[in-house]
């Protein structure tokens, strides 16, 4: 009996999701389009832009678009206008001055190897510039490279085309890699849990998001009342902000609103009971 009670109160859920920035950056709008650059070349990985594009829909619908506690709506938006530097150019974080200067210098020598400009929404392309990747076995990199204040406006996902590792993966693994990179584009960092999509490497089989991924995306893009799935901004939308306080002490659940709602529930029923008291009749 003691064992049963102990097991009951030990949760097997472990979660340790992180963010890829220290200011909780996320897209301002919950509707984000995902594009493939229409002129991208994946010659080393032997993939056409159409083949690359066919990975997007399952990466969205099998993973990020399946979370009911998040209002995020990702859309496979087809192809975006070609960026000249996207195949060989340098991808830099907006705060990395050294990288930006190197990219500008490289562009002065060969315009196709210059700095890749900031984009809107999420754009995916292949890139053969080894300087963008930490090594040949790195499958892809993602950098949100356009911000408005603390909000992400656009992010670039580059598939490593300086090696053929990505092209050698199974289709399922390729979908998992694209979904993982989209997770970074949305603001999530790595998880230490290997069951999570945001784990730093591919796993034997990737079918769904892990608990970390679900919790992380629900935090960054919270649902505010979905009316059973009919509306993404329904019942609670008029409440406006979902942030309750800036720096609450960790481990302290919201006792006040919880207690207030419980009190109102009990009060309501007691009032209800008062007004529905049976009438007493004089005995004859």
């Amino acid at each position, binding site marked *: 009996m003691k064992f049963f009670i102990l097991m009951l109160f030990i949760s097997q859920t472990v979660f340790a999701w992180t963010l890829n920035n220290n200011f909780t950056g996320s897209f301002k709008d919950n509707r984000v389009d995902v594009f493939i650059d229409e002129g991208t070349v994946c010659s080393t990985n032997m993939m056409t832009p159409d083949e690359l594009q066919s990975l997007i829909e399952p990466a969205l619908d099998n993973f990020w678009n399946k979370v*009911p506690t998040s209002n995020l709506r990702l859309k496979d938006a087809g192809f975006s206008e070609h960026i000249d530097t996207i195949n060989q150019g340098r991808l830099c974080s907006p705060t990395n001055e050294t990288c930006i200067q190197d990219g500008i210098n490289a562009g002065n020598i060969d315009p196709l190897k210059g700095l890749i400009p900031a984009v809107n929404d999420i754009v995916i392309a292949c890139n053969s510039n080894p300087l963008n990747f930490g090594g040949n076995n790195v499958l892809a990199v993602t950098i949100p490279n356009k911000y408005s204040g603390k909000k992400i406006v656009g992010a670039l996902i580059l598939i490593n085309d300086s090696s053929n590792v990505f092209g050698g993966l199974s289709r399922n693994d390729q979908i998992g890699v694209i979904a993982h990179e989209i997770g970074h584009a949305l603001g999530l960092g790595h998880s230490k849990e290997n069951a999570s999509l945001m784990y*730093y490497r591919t*796993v034997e089989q990737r079918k769904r998001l892990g608990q970390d991924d679900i919790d992380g995306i629900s935090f960054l893009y*919270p649902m505010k009342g*979905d009316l059973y799935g009919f509306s993404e901004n329904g019942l609670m939308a008029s409440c406006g902000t979902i942030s309750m306080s800036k*720096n609450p002490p*960790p*481990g302290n659940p919201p006792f006040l609103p919880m207690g207030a709602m419980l009190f109102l529930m009990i009060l309501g029923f007691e009032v209800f009971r008062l007004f529905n008291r049976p009438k007493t009749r004089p005995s004859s």
Partner: protein
Amino acid sequence: MLRLHIYLLSVLFCVASYGDRSIASETNKSVNSFVFNAGTYTEFYNQVQIDTTGRLKEFDRAPTVGFGMKIPLKHEFSFLPEMNWVLPRKSGERVVKNVFFFRADLGYDPMEWFRIRGGTSIAWLNQQGGGGEEIINNGNSTSTFYYPTENRSSFNNTIDLGVELLIKKISLRFQTYTFSALEPRRRQISYSIFISYYWDR
């Protein structure tokens, strides 16, 4: 459709008030029992990966407690409002997760020992970040990743079904919560298993 949830709750309350008048004259009580629950909560059955081989979560021991009432209605029906709390789960004091359900069920007892429940909930997922950073593997090297410093919540409306075995004042209940019921792509089912105690007034 914006009023659907309020409408459903109103219908449940109207049914409750109608039934209550007829029963109240017999029992002189509108709330005839308070209910205390303890059990487990499994979030998104078969939709959460739990290992590297692709195994999906079928059961979670996330401990859950709750409190509710039983308001008898006409015939074998009863109105069963309750609140459940999936106890906090955390990782290294960095992020704390709480889930609350504010529920309203209509119960039907076809037999003395068996109850069918149907209703709706507002599911409230709250996550509190403790801030900080951590160095995590990033392929060929390591990178610094960050924990949030804010407190954020998600709210969902769920459609709930359950069955309950009643043994005197104790019951065993299997309760499901359907998230995004009207949106097939996002529809997910969570469930709880409860042991409940009915404290009669």
